[in-house]
């Protein structure tokens, strides 16, 4: 007697599509933003502790590694924000048509890179410039 195939969990047999990546990226950027939140609190605490602490924090944030982290945070912020709005529309029942979902997905991905760069440059200029 032929063995009947057992049903598989969806993630074991769904074909990969780039929309999968968009979805998992929402989680990844969310987790990264939680680390970015720690960075925000560090910055606020340094400012509250006085000018000397703030200068130390500013130097620390100017290091190449910190700049990379800040860029990651800026990109995550923009991606999570744009894709979050996309998901809010999904929650309201809009944008589920394949064409629309793919277009909005591309818009989110491209928008996140462009806006992420802009936000990073703004933060960078802010922390670097001025007395």
């Amino acid at each position, binding site marked *: 007697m032929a063995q009947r195939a057992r049903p598989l969990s969806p993630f074991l047999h769904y074909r990969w599509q780039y929309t999968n990546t968009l979805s998992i990226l929402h989680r990844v950027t969310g*987790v990264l933003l939680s680390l970015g939140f720690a960075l925000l609190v560090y910055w606020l605490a340094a400012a509250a502790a006085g000018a000397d602490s703030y200068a130390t924090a500013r130097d620390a944030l100017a290091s190449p590694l910190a700049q990379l982290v800040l860029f990651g945070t800026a990109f995550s912020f923009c991606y999570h924000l744009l894709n979050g709005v996309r998901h809010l529309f999904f929650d309201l029942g809009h944008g589920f048509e394949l064409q629309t979902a793919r277009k909005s997905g591309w818009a989110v991905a491209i928008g996140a890179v462009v806006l992420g760069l802009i936000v990073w440059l703004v933060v960078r200029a802010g922390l670097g*410039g*001025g007395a």
Partner: protein
Amino acid sequence: MSLKSPLRSVTYLGSAKGGSGHWYAQRVTAVALVLLGLWFVVSLAALGGASHENVVAWLSSPVAAAFAVLLVLTAAWHALLGLQVVIEDYVGDKGTRMAVLLVVKFALAVAAVIGVIAVLRIAFGVAA
């Protein structure tokens, strides 16, 4: 008569707990964070260099301080809800899951309170 499904009274079986409240809070904080996040980035851009003077002057305004406090609290709450889902999805062992959740909750609570105190300290003019 309660409108809640009787499933809700069943424990340890599927979605019998407080899922809808969690789901809704995640969306409410998301909408708030769209506004607060944009406010924060625009404020940073308008700061004209994030020198200590500028940051202190900015957060000395009651409106800016209020938004900053809201940003910290809402971000911590939204992060907690999101991280909880991720942890519950990927940490299989019940004991480990509970331990990780506790650590994340405590860490976020500490960070949020530090953030709020920092903003208030600047707002009340205590920061030198």
